[in-house]
């Protein structure tokens, strides 16, 4: 096939593109900059049941996923339960003591909770989408900031 035929076909494909990104997504992309956390090493999951266990969620039903994030000083274990679009987090911060947890979700909202004396926490009322968490353990003067995970 001559090269110009390919060029024509690519041009035709381009011309038929009637599925552009939604306008709301472009706005969200601009807003992403305001979420930037400077000078922080972001933690990727060291364990993700979705990937590590090859589990496939049962569609349309309640399903859960386990995530673990860890630095040298702090670990964060979270079970994310999905119920339709809703998400609930149940987890524990290690060391097991009171700490502060901030959840950024959906790219536009932030929610803060305090863990109990054993580092446990529950966060309800989240929506599916990008999620990032930060936990601060005051007694250790240490913190953990996670990268974005789509849940």
């Amino acid at each position: 096939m001559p090269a110009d035929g390919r060029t024509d076909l690519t041009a035709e494909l381009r011309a038929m593109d009637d599925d552009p990104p939604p306008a709301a997504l472009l706005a969200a992309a601009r807003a992403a900059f305001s979420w930037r956390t400077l000078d922080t090493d972001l933690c990727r999951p060291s364990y993700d049941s979705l990937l590590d266990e090859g589990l496939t969620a049962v569609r349309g039903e309640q399903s859960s996923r386990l995530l673990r994030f860890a630095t040298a000083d702090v670990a964060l274990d979270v079970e994310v339960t999905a119920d339709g679009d809703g998400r609930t987090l149940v987890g524990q911060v290690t060391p097991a003591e009171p700490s502060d947890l901030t959840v950024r979700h959906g790219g536009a909202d932030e929610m803060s909770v305090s863990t109990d004396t054993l580092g446990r926490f529950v966060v309800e009322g989240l929506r599916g989408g990008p999620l990032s968490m930060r936990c601060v353990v005051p007694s250790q003067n240490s913190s953990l900031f996670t990268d974005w995970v789509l849940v």
Partner: protein
Amino acid sequence: MERFTPLLWAIARGHGLPAAAAVDVTHTAWLRLVESLDDAPADAIGEWVSAIARAESLHALRWVDPRPDRRGDGGDRLRNALEQLPARCRLTLRVLAVSPPPDRNVLAAVLDATPDQAEAFAADCLQRLAESLADTAST
């Protein structure tokens, strides 16, 4: 940075994700890029973020019902010809059609292949599309 949004969207949709999941994947890729601007290779940001969009799309497919990447109402000859092709070809052609056109390194990231392999595969897909169009025309 906004120039990447059509590309990321095409990658997510090209994997067969419905619009809501494709929004989440694109959004996640964006946030990860923005958070990692200092670490991402400055001369290869397109590849870097495309690889993330590919990985996030594959993750999302584990819990989302994939749907055919069917655009519009269909019915015209190009759409019909596209639907005859395998999913990986449809993804490739979808990404090729993004404006501005992705370079070979981005295509390689989308397909998780070497640039040479990606280019050869894209050429093969265009060839198959042309043949599929010819078949449609002759029936």
